C-alpha cells in the first residue's frame, strides 16, 4: 500500500509530463509557422501546409500576434460595431438574430465558401453577409472592399481564430471545386503563368527579395503593409492576376469564389489567422 502510494506521485508526474509534451508538440505542429500542418486530404498536391506567416518577418509576425499592435484592429472594431447596428426596413441588426458573435459565429469562418442551394452555386462569406442584409434586414448591401464589409468579415472570421480551415468540397460543391482547380492550373496573362508556378512548385524561394508563399488564404482579410490597409482575398487575387499581366476578374465573381473554395481546400487544416498581417 505504501509502495503504491509512493509510486502514485511520480507516476502522476510522469503521466502529466508525458501529456504535456504531447500537447506542446501538437501545438507546435498545428500552426503552419513553426512546423507544417499535414494536409487533411491525400489528394492535396501540397505535402505539407505552411501559412504565409512563416515567411513574414519577425516584426510582421509579432505585429499580427499582438492584439493591440495588429493594424487591422480598427477594422475589427468597425465589424463589431456593425454587428450590433440596427439598419434597414426590418429594424434589425446582425445581433437581433445571431446574438453574440463569439458564440454564434464560432467555426463559421472555417467553412466558407459554402454551396448555397437557392443560387445553385457557391457563396462566399461576403455574399452571405449581404444576403442577410438584403433579405433579413432589408438593408443595403455592403460594397465588397468597404471598411464595413472587411470589418464584418474580420469580426466573423476571427471568432474561428486558431480553428482549422475545413471547407467541404464534395457533393454539391464538387463541380465548383473542379472549376476552382482549373483556374489554379490555367496559365494566364502576358507572362503566361498559373497560380501553381509560384505557389506550388516554388514556395519558399526568392523572387528578387520577395519570398514566395504557398498562397494560403487562412489569414484573410489581411492587413497588408503594402496596401496600408486591410484587404480581401479577392483583392489579392486581382493583384496576382495583374502581376502576371492578366485581366483580373471582379471581386465576388464566380471565378474568384470557386478559386477561393479550391484554395481554402488546399489549406484545409491550417488555423484561421484572421486578421493576419503581411508585407
Amino acid at each position, binding site marked *: 500500500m505504501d509502495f503504491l502510494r509512493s509510486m502514485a506521485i511520480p507516476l502522476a508526474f510522469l503521466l502529466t509530463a508525458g501529456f504535456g509534451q504531447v500537447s506542446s508538440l501538437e501545438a507546435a505542429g498545428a500552426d503552419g509557422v513553426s512546423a507544417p500542418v499535414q494536409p487533411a486530404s491525400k489528394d492535396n498536391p501540397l505535402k505539407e501546409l505552411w501559412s504565409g506567416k512563416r515567411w513574414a*518577418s*519577425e*516584426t*510582421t509576425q509579432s505585429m499580427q500576434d499582438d492584439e493591440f499592435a495588429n*493594424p487591422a484592429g480598427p477594422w475589427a472594431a468597425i465589424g463589431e460595431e456593425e454587428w450590433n447596428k440596427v439598419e434597414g426596413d426590418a429594424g434589425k441588426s446582425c445581433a437581433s438574430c445571431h446574438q453574440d458573435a463569439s458564440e454564434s459565429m464560432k467555426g463559421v469562418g472555417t467553412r466558407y465558401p459554402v454551396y448555397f442551394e437557392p443560387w445553385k452555386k457557391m457563396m462566399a462569406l461576403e455574399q452571405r453577409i449581404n444576403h442577410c442584409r438584403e433579405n433579413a434586414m432589408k438593408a443595403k448591401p455592403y460594397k465588397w472592399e468597404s471598411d464595413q464589409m472587411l470589418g464584418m468579415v474580420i469580426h466573423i472570421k476571427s471568432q474561428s481564430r486558431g480553428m482549422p480551415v475545413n471547407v467541404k468540397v464534395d457533393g454539391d460543391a464538387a463541380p465548383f471545386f473542379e472549376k476552382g482547380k482549373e483556374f489554379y492550373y*490555367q*496559365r*494566364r*496573362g*502576358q*507572362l*503566361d*503563368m498559373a497560380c501553381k*508556378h*509560384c505557389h506550388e*512548385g*516554388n514556395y519558399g*524561394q*526568392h*523572387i*528578387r*527579395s520577395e519570398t*514566395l508563399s504557398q498562397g494560403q488564404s487562412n489569414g484573410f482579410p489581411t492587413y497588408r*503593409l*503594402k496596401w*496600408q490597409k486591410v484587404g480581401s482575398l479577392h483583392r489579392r487575387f486581382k493583384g496576382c*492576376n*495583374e502581376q502576371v*499581366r*492578366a*485581366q483580373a476578374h471582379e471581386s465576388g465573381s464566380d471565378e474568384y469564389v470557386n478559386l477561393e473554395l479550391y484554395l481554402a481546400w488546399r489549406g484545409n487544416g491550417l488555423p484561421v489567422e484572421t486578421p493576419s498581417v503581411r*508585407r
Partner: protein
Amino acid sequence: MFRAIFISLLIAGLAVSGQAFAQSAPKGAATLDAKPAPKAKERCQDGETPEVAAYTIGKGPNVEKAINESLTGTPGDPEKGLQWMAHRRLGNCLACHMISAVLERAEKTPNIEVTNLAGQKSSQPLGNHGEIGPSLDGVASRYTEGELRMLVVDPKAIFPDTIMPAFHKNNGFTRVHPDCQGLAILSAQQVEDVVAFLNTLK
C-alpha cells in the same frame, strides 16, 4: 529578412529607429523597392512591342529545338542585353536567375541606367537575384547561341511546364491584360542583345 522589415516599415510609414535595418539594406535598392506599384493602365508601356519576327525552329545539339539564325541580322549588344535583363518590367531575368558576374559588378555599381524603347530612363538594380530559375553561370557552355535564342523567345517550346515567360511572343495567351494585348515583352533586337550577353557567360 531585415531588409524586408525595413521596406515594410518604410511603406507603412511607421516610425522606427531602424539603425540595424538600414545598415543591412543594400544601397539604392530600398528606395527602388519602396516606389508604389505601377498603375494597371501603365502595365505594358516600357517598350513592349507588337511586331514579332518570323523565325525557323531548327535543331540544337543539347536540346531538341533552337533558333539558329539571328532574328534581325544585326549583331546583339551584350551591354544593352544586360540592361534589358536587369529592367524589372522588361526581361527582369535577375528576378529568378543568379549570375555571379553580375553580382560582382553590382558590388561596385549597384544600378544600371536603362533607356527603354519608349525613351524612358530608369535606374535598375543589378543585385538581388532570385532563385526560381537555374543559375545562368556558364549557360553559354551548356547551350548554343541558337538554343539560347529559342529559350529567350519561347522557352515552352523546350520546357513545356516552365514558369518562364516567352519574351518574344504576342499571341496565344489567356486573358491578357488590356494594356498588354498583342504585345511581346522584348523586341527582336532586344532578344539579340540578351542572347549576346548570355553568350558571354561561358
